[in-house]
């Protein structure tokens, strides 16, 4: 197991390094002078030159990359060019909001997707199954920002049940939770469809298994058979699917954070790209990449611990 863990950790380091290289290369392909954008119309050439020097933009690109790369491994992601605050601080201020958004999105997708999938499976072929099928495909097909806008109009503007903007009062979890409902729904709704389809398919397979038939033959209650014996097996592929879903939800989070004017890493990166605040772009994307790789590493280690075949095949 130790050998497996070391190999997986090594792979994670390589993935993050490659991501850093690609990220750095792409950033410098974006047109637009960061100093001009940052300092605005009244800046003189001397001021712009001074800012470029402070940002290290006057250095050869490989020197800039090395500074970024070596700094990143020691936790130094540079300094935000305008406020001169450490980038790591700036990113870590925003990360909890994005994590909360993704956890909320997963919660929605699990809370709605699993029951709908179960319902469709046990009512196979009926109108409930058909409606769930159509709804699942519909929510998968509709972009999350469209869902976000309609959710805003219905629940915030027309019904005025829920807030439209912001992340709630700092230090008030209840208020923050209420502010999380619509954005997390927008992020997670697409995955309701995926999970419902996955759970339905798995359930249909499991419900045909001999031990389930035996349970029915013994006259066990339906609830017990479905929840205790069928769903507990059928849900396993869904857990794997959710791992992939986190990556996609991270990108959906950008839209949700913009539409709902929430703080978060997605909004931070969006704003930083518009203002060519490169240290923040690289720092924020690196942190989210590392976060995603770390989650996958943990998942792989858990699977490896549970299944010896995975360890031996790696």
């Amino acid at each position: 197991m130790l050998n497996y863990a070391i190999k997986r950790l090594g792979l994670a380091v390589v993935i993050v390094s490659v991501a850093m290289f690609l990220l750095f290369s792409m950033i410098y392909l974006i047109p637009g002078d960061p100093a001009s954008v940052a300092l605005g119309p009244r800046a003189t050439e001397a001021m712009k030159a001074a800012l470029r020097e402070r940002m290290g933009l006057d250095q050869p690109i490989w020197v800039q990359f090395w500074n970024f790369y070596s700094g990143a491994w020691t936790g130094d992601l540079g300094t935000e060019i305008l406020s001169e605050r450490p980038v790591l601080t700036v990113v870590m201020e925003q990360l909890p909001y994005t994590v909360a958004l993704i956890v909320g999105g997963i919660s929605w997708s699990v809370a709605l997707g699993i029951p709908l999938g179960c319902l469709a499976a046990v009512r196979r072929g009926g109108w409930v199954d058909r409606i769930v099928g159509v709804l699942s495909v519909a929510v998968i097909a509709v972009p999350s920002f469209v869902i976000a806008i309609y959710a805003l109009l219905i629940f915030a503007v027309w019904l005025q049940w829920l807030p439209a903007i912001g992340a709630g009062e700092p230090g008030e979890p209840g208020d923050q939770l209420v502010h999380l409902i619509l954005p997390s729904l927008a992020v997670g709704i697409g995955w309701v469809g995926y999970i419902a389809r996955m759970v339905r398919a798995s359930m249909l397979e499991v419900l045909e298994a001999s031990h389930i038939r035996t349970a029915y033959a013994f006259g066990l209650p339906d609830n017990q058979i479905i929840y205790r014996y069928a769903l507990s097996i059928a849900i396993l592929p869904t857990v794997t699917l959710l791992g992939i879903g986190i990556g996609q939800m991270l990108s959906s989070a950008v839209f949700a954070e913009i539409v709902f004017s929430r703080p978060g890493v997605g909004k931070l990166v969006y704003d930083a790209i518009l203002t060519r605040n490169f240290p923040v772009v690289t720092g924020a994307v690196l942190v989210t990449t590392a976060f995603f790789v770390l989650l996958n590493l943990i998942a792989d280690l858990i699977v490896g611990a549970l299944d010896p075949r995975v360890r031996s095949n790696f």
Partner: protein
Amino acid sequence: MSETKHFPLSRRSLLASAGAFGVVGAVYPRMALSQDGKILKVRSYSDIQILDPAFRLSAPEGDIMTAIFAGLATYQTGDEWAWKPMAVESLEQLDDLTIAFKLRDKIGFTDGFGQMTAEDVKFSIERIADPANESPYAGDWATLKEVEVKDTLSGVIHLREKFVPLWSSTLPTASCCILSKAAVEAEGGKIGTKPVGQSGPYLMTEWTPKQRTILKRNPDWAYEPGGFEEIHIFPIEDPAAAEIGFEAGDLDHTWTAVSSISRLKDAPPAGGVIVEKPSLAYVWMGMNQDVAPFDNPNIRRAVQHAIDRETVVEAAYFGAATTSTGIIAPGLAGHREAVLYDYDPDKAREILAAEGAEGLTVTLDILNQSERLAAAQVIQANLADVGITCEIKQNDSGTFWTLGDKGGDYWNKLQMHLGRFSMQPDPSWATVWFTPEQIGVWNWERWNSPEFAELHAQGLVEGDPAKRDEIYRKMQDLMDEGGCYVFLTHEVTGVLHRDTVNPGLKPNGEALLAEFKPV
């Protein structure tokens, strides 16, 4: 496997879940907090990044600074541009080069930095003017000689030469906010995102990055108090998102998109009031005279005649804005009644035929905003009507605002662009960007008129309003004659506020936070 008949997950349970979702909304208070007169919730279009008047980066930062750092003067609310004293008992122009001030005696700085003194005034103004400090706002004090301290509260501002915009666009702005010399020095010479030595009617007490900034009424401010106990400022870049936030009851005041004004006037949100204010901003289409085909002045003239400005503005702003006659808005010295070369497609075709320039293909660079795109599409159609094929190129803001930089990648490719500049209430703010020294900086048309530059310099020192008016009219005539410009609109500012709030607005609709009052 047969269908299970008594599966516990029923439509009823799903409906119950939806009901619970509704209950959450029902118990959540959805009323504007300004109704009790305590908290005002307003939108700004960007978050703060620096709270130093000498190095501010955006208008929202200036709005906050003028509320938390008392300045010598501030703008008056209303429809006419005027100033009123803020930190001073008196502020008087003794002659063209001398302004005397006497501070109010009960203004103190927070954080234990004591009373505001004339020494602080000297420090605050001279640090902006000093070229060594490289303040982007040094131009606001371009002709400052020195600030002389007479006694603890009195002093004299000495100018090297007359500077007419001083009273309209320097003294009432953040460029005249007074900082505590001791506080700034204690901070190492520059204030960041945490203000020290605050002195205004409000104090900034909390900043949650990307989320909100909270100002609280300053209990030690002995003069006209702020209208609300707290002002919560939410950074929301997209005006449409802010409009939804207002309709949902999360905001008490916001600017709207110009294209939303008609809709909001027809169907204002419950408890909402929509106000239209004339904007000082100006929108134009520019042609780069150093790049073919616009290096031919006759082609430029043809394009001036080809654009139906009224239709362009109608399409972009849904009737909320009118066409402009130049870069200087109504109400300011130099505003003209008409452009010299307006829509005349037959004349455009005639010129193009005479130049043998039929079948031209050109590019129009724009910012990726819906209003600009709508305007560009009408321009595209207008040009097609006279035989010019126009390709529209949309750019994000980071790319767009560097397209015309000298030495940049696009410097020799930029042909036409749609520009929009905002400005302060003095015509010199409009003309400064089109002088020859701005070529490759903000003069993307590379229009090179020494006469224009000379008139701009004259306008800065000309005190006679009639002569000043004549100077700026002449300057816009020169711009028209040069052929590089098609003036489109000054837009209009849409302000949406709760009917429980009396908004403190400058004549152009910009917010004066300290002037907001509950009704």
